C-alpha cells in the first residue's frame, strides 16, 4: 500500500514533501536549541537516539531520562520551558527567517563541508551573510584580546595581504587581534568571516559593530551555533573556538599570553589535523609566551604572509615586507618625522622633542602623514607607524 502511494507522487511533490519535513525538523531543532543546557553535543546524542529532532521534540521528558539523555532534574524544568514558550519562539523563528538569517542543519546540502568533518560539529548553525567558499582556502587568525599595537598591526597586515590574494580569513570577532584581522581583510577584500561566541543577533563586543554589520550584510559572513539572542557567556567562547579551527584550513596565532584562550583553538586545530602557524614573540614579552611555547611544541614559524601562501601552494606575487613604505613621496620634514615614528605608539610631545620641531608643526605634519597612510593614531596624542 505504501509503495503504491509513493509511486503516485510526482517528483516535485516528493520534493515538496521533503521540504515540509525539513521545515518541521528545522523548527523542532530550533526549539530544542533554545533549551538551556542543550548544547551541540547533547543535540547530536538526541538525534542519534530518536532518529529525528521532530520525533525528539514530540517526546515527553521522561523518555529522555529513561534513555539517559537527561540526568539533572533541572533539565526537566528547562524542557518544559521551551514547550511553554513554543508560540513565542516560533514567532521568533519566522522573524529570523524573514530577516535573512539562514538556519542550516547538518543534513542540509549547504552545511559547510569543513564543519561536517569535525567530530563535535553543531547540528544547527545560524548564518548571516555568506559561508566561506568550499573551494577557496581559508585561514584562521587568532590571538589575545588584550594585545599590543604591534600585534594588531601584524594581524591587520597579514589578514589584508592574504585576503587580497583570495584567502578567506576566519576570526572570532572579539577585541584585539580578532577585530584587527577582520578589519584588515574587510578593507583589503571586503570579505571576512566571524564565528561568534553569542547569538547571531548580538554584536559582542559592541565596539565591533561596524565590522559585524558589514560582515552580516554579505561582506563575508557571521556564523553562530547559539540561539540567536543568547548573550556571550564565557563557556561559549571555548565552544566557538572549535568552529574557528574547523572552518580554517590553517591557523595563525599572532599573540597569546601564558594562559590564553587561543590555546584551546590550537588544541582543536591539532585534533582536527590542521597546520598551526605562530608568530614568534620576544622572550621577555608576556604576550609572546603563548606563541613561543607553541613554536617549541612544533608549530610552524610565521614571519610573512608568504609562509601561508606557500602552504597553499599559491603564487606569491608581490607580497610587501612588513613596514615597507615608499618614502619618495614625503618631503624632508615628513621623512624625518616618519623616521622618528616606530611600531610603538609615542606621544606627540616625545616626537616633537626627537625631531626638534615645534609642537604645532609636529601636529600638522602628523596629520599629513596620517592622511597619506604613513602614520596612525590609536588614541589622541599618540602616533605610530602605519604598516
Amino acid at each position, binding site marked *: 500500500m505504501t509503495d503504491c502511494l509513493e509511486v503516485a507522487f510526482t517528483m516535485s511533490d516528493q520534493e515538496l514533501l521533503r521540504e515540509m519535513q525539513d521545515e518541521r525538523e528545522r523548527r523542532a531543532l530550533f526549539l530544542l536549541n533554545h533549551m538551556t543546557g542543550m548544547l551541540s553535543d547533547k543535540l547530536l546524542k538526541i538525534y542519534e537516539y530518536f532518529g529525528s529532532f521532530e520525533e525528539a521534540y514530540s517526546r515527553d521528558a521522561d523518555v529522555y531520562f529513561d534513555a539517559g539523555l537527561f540526568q539533572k532534574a533541572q533539565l526537566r524544568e528547562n524542557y518544559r520551558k521551551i514547550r511553554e514558550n513554543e508560540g513565542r519562539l516560533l514567532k521568533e523563528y519566522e522573524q529570523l527567517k524573514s530577516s535573512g538569517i539562514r538556519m542550516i542543519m547538518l543534513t542540509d546540502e549547504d552545511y559547510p563541508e569543513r564543519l561536517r568533518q569535525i567530530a563535535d560539529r553543531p547540528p544547527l548553525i545560524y548564518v548571516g551573510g555568506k559561508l566561506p567558499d568550499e573551494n577557496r582556502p581559508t585561514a584562521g587568525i587568532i590571538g589575545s584580546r*588584550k594585545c599590543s*599595537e604591534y600585534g594588531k598591526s601584524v594581524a591587520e597586515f597579514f589578514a589584508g595581504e592574504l585576503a587580497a590574494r583570495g584567502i578567506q580569513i576566519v576570526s572570532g570577532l572579539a577585541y584585539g587581534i580578532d577585530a584587527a584581522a577582520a578589519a584588515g581583510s574587510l578593507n583589503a577584500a571586503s570579505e571576512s568571516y566571524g564565528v561568534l561566541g553569542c547569538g547571531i543577533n548580538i554584536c559582542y563586543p559592541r565596539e565591533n559593530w561596524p565590522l559585524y554589520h558589514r560582515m552580516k550584510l554579505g561582506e563575508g559572513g557571521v556564523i553562530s551555533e547559539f540561539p540567536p539572542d543568547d548573550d556571550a557567556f564565557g563557556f561559549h567562547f571555548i565552544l566557538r573556538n572549535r568552529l574557528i579551527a574547523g572552518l580554517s584550513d590553517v591557523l595563525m596565532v599572532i599573540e597569546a599570553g601564558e594562559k590564553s584562550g587561543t590555546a584551546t583553538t590550537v588544541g582543536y586545530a591539532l585534533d582536527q589535523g590542521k597546520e598551526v602557524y605562530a608568530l614568534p614573540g620576544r622572550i621577555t614579552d608576556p604576550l609572546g609566551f603563548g606563541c613561543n611555547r607553541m613554536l617549541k611544541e612544533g608549530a610552524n614559524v610565521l614571519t610573512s604572509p608568504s609562509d601561508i601562501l606557500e602552504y597553499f601552494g599559491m603564487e606569491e606575487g608581490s607580497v610587501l615586507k612588513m613596514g615597507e613604505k615608499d618614502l619618495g613621496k614625503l618631503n624632508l620634514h615628513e621623512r624625518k618625522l616618519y623616521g622618528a615614528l616606530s611600531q610603538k605608539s609615542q606621544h606627540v610631545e616625545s616626537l616633537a622633542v626627537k625631531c626638534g620641531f615645534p609642537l604645532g608643526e609636529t*601636529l*600638522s605634519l602628523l596629520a599629513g602623514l596620517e592622511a597619506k597612510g604613513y602614520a596612525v593614531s*590609536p*588614541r589622541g596624542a599618540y602616533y605610530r607607524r602605519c604598516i
Partner: protein
Amino acid sequence: MFAKINTAGLFGVEGYPVVIEADVRNGLPGMTLTGLLSTETREAQARVMNALGNSGLHPEPKKITVNFSPAGMRKEGTAYDLPIAVAVLCAYGMLKEQNCAGTAFFGELGLDGSLKGVRGALPLAFALKEAGFTRVVTAAENAAEAALVEDMQVFGCRDIREVMELLRRAGNGWVPAPVPEAELPSGPSEGSSRPDFSDVRGQKYLKRAAEIAASGMHNLLMSGPAGTGKTMIAKRLPSILPEMTREENLEISKIYSICGLLPKGHPLLDARPFRSPHHSITEPAFAGGGVTVLPGEMSLASGGILFLDELPLFKRAVLEQLRQPLEDHKITITRMYGSCVYPADFLLVAACNNCRCGFYPDLKKCRCTRGQIQAYIGRISKPLMERIDLCAEANPLRVDEIVGKRKADEEEASAVIRKRVEAVHALQKERYKGETFRFNSRLGIREIEKYCVLGRSETAYLKDAFTRKGLSGRTYHKILKVARTIADMEGSERIREEHLAEAVEFRSIDDRLFGGGIYNE
C-alpha cells in the same frame, strides 16, 4: 520716642536698603524685635543692651520695640547690631536723629561695646551707595573694604562710644572720613610668590593646551597618569590670564566678602581666584546654598579657575550642577524666600586618570578590564563632556625631563605667556564688539557659522580627518571653536589646515577611549 536709622541687608550678592525703627515708651521693660529675623539677628537684643550698659550708657528700663522694614524680607547676620543700638539711643534721645540723616550703619557689637567686622561689607556698601547714601559708619575692620566703593565716606569705629562721639560732632557738620589704613594692592606686586609656569618642566603638550584654554577661555580636561604635572599646570593657569580690571576685581571680591574669605588686611583679591574643591564636596557647597544662602565653589571661582581634580570621583549630582552655569555663567539658587543669582563665570579645568589604577593607556602596567576603564570615564556624563572644548592627554614624564639641572630660561615664564594671551583676548574683544560675548569658547552654533568660516580645501581637510579618525558629529563645533582660537593665537584671520590639525588633536576624550591602549614592550 521714635527714631529711624538706615542700614542694608543682603540677598545673594545684592544688597537692599533696610530701615530700622526703634520706639521707646513706658511699659513692661524689655525689647521686642520684629520684621522676619533669623536667630542670630534676633539675638541682637542681648548684645545691644549689654553693649550699651558696658559702655557706660544706662538707658532707663522701658519697653523698646524695634522693627525692620521691609518686613517681608528675611534678615540674616549680625550687621544690624550697630544700627539697632544707634536707633535705640536716638529713640531715648541720647543721640540726635537728625545727625544720622544721610548716614547708614552696619556692624556687629560685642558685649563690651566693641565693634566687630561682618561678612559682606563690600556688597553692603555698594547697596547703600545705590540707595543714595554717601556716608557709612561701620567697624574699623570693615572700613577699608567698604571704602572701595567710590564717593563713599566710610567712618571706621572701634566701639560704640566712638560712634556716639562721631555722631555728636556731626552736629557741627561732617568732616571728611580718614583714608582707611589698608591700602589697595598695587598690581601684581606679590607676583614673585605666585606659582609660575617656568616651574613646570617639559609637558609642552599640556602647556600648549593650557595656553589655548586661557586664550579662548575654553574649558579644559587633562587626562593621564598621576605625577605628570596636571595639577601643577592647573594651579598656574590664573597666572597667564590677563590681570583683573578693577570692576572685575570688585565684582569677584563682593562674593569673597559675603563668604568672609577676603585675605586679612586686603579689601580686594590680589590674584584671580583658583578654587580646587575636593571630590567629596556636596551639592550645596559646590553650587551655593545652605541655611543662609552662601555662594558655592562655582561662584567663588568666578573670574578665575575652577579646578576639579579626579573629575570622575566627584558625585554625579555635583557634576551635573555644572551644566547650567557652563552655559549661562551664573547660577540661580531658589530657596524659600526667593531666588538669588550668583555669578559663576569661571574657566573649568579638570583632571582625571584614564582608569582606576591610573596607568591606562600603558597596558603593561594597567590591570583594569575594558569595562572598568569605560565605567571610570563614563562617570563623566556626555552633556558635561560636550561643554569641555579641549581635552589633552599628558605625556608620561621621561627621566631626562626630571633629572638634571635646569637651564635658567629653559621654560617660559608666566609673564611671557600672559602677554600673548592678553593679545588674543584683545583681538577677540575687537572682533566681538557689539556681541554679547567676548571669547571664542562662547560662540553658539549660529556664531560659529559667522566667525569660523572654512575655505574649500580646509572643509575638505576636516571632512577627511573626520572619516579617518572616526569622529562623532558632536565634536565638530568644538574643533571649529578651538581652531578659531589657535588661528587667533597666530594672528591669522583665516583658519588654516594646521590650525584644524591641532584642534582635532585636542578633541573629546570619549572619541578616543575605544581606540585601545598602548602596549610598548
